[in-house]
């Protein structure tokens, strides 16, 4: 066992590279999906049926199929449409679109859940639509969408592991590589599980702490 550990130590640079890729991909995908999610939610909420319907269809397609199939479709099917991507950009785009679609549904529900009375009250004191959105709708919505958004973003962290199948050199891929070279599969996969577990619990903990701090501002019952 200690021998195995020593062998794993040998692969430390590869492991560190994997961790950096995983976290980097995750953070980039999270930021992109928030932007995409917000854009879709706004377009669908205020854009009228011409914008809403095609977007609704796209969201349905992504929410109705496995992420793995989407990754394959983009990475292996892309070249047929003149879209040849390297593994990392392909993975990042797939992950960001996937997360963005799920987040857009949460954001849309958040926008809908702001009581119309609050918007009317803002209009009555003379706020413009933009001011109302920025000062009233957005903050109220933020408190509501925080818990489900945190869940989705944590989900993205776990989904980065799936990108190993298109040979993105993230943590799971790196560990599998080491496993196949050293045959210490169980040990390395066990340690890998523990690392993800710790990372996910850490994020969930941070999310709950943020929720607690914000719960004072829960205006919407």
């Amino acid at each position, binding site marked *: 066992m200690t021998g195995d550990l020593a062998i794993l130590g040998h692969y430390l640079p590869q492991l560190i590279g994997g961790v950096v890729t995983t976290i980097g991909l995750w953070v980039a995908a999270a930021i992109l999906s928030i932007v995409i999610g917000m854009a879709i939610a706004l377009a669908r909420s205020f854009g009228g049926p011409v914008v809403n319907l095609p977007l609704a269809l796209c969201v349905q397609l992504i929410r109705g199929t496995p*992420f793995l*199939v989407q990754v394959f*479709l983009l990475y*292996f099917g892309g070249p047929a449409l003149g879209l040849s991507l390297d593994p990392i950009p392909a993975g990042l785009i797939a992950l960001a679109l996937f997360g963005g679609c799920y987040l857009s549904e949460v954001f849309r529900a958040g926008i809908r859940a702001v009581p119309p009375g609050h918007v009317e009250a803002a209009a009555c004191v003379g706020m413009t639509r933009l001011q109302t959105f920025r000062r009233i709708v957005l903050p109220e919505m933020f408190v509501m969408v925080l818990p489900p958004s945190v869940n989705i973003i944590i989900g993205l962290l776990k*989904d980065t592991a*799936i990108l*190993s199948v298109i040979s993105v050199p993230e943590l*799971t891929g790196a560990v599998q590589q080491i496993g196949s070279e050293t045959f210490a599969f169980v040990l390395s*996969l066990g340690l890998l599980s523990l690392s993800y577990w710790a990372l996910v619990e850490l994020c969930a903990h941070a999310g709950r702490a943020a929720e607690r701090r914000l719960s004072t501002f829960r205006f919407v019952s």
Partner: protein
Amino acid sequence: MDGKLFLLMVKAAGVTAVCSVLAIAIGIAIGIVVCGATLARPKPLQIAARLYVSFFRGVPLLVQLLLFYNLLPAVGLNISSFFAAELALSLCTSAYQAETLRGGFLSVSTGLKEAADMVGMTLWQRFRRVEAPIALRLTIPAIVNEAISILHASALVSVIGVVELTKTAGEIAASNYDPLPVYACAGLLYLIMTYVIQLLGLAAERRFPVRSA
């Protein structure tokens, strides 16, 4: 892509459906037990159940699959990849189901339980006739969502060699060098199965309505 290949994929979709349905059913059964443990009195039982839920929700399913696939033979259990896949899928979904059920039980209002107490029901009668039916009905939408997640997650079992829809699509794509329509077709089949689950869920909600709870 010709009709013969399409038929092959429809058959593979059948394997995916079987994988998912089995995992959901076993997952709910284990989930009920784990949920019971999280709500039970003895502290160690509670802690064990919490750890279980946290682990299986915290580790990517792909890593769980690889772990079970490699771990079981290492401890002397020679199992098929299908079995390893079912095991990982069921355990993973059971953790989510346990949390959902727990939420359902916690949201049965005190007043409804007090009403059961007041007509003289025992704790077991109250559980069986009032709490469990209401909690189960409240969790139907969440269980439907979880069923859809499992259907989608089952694509991952292709990685450990189970020949289901995604694996079949990969094999066809590798042999005919035309991956775009093949994966699009696989996506369509998943989409259809997703809608079937959604329709079943809506039917269940209509059949067992519970609001104002």
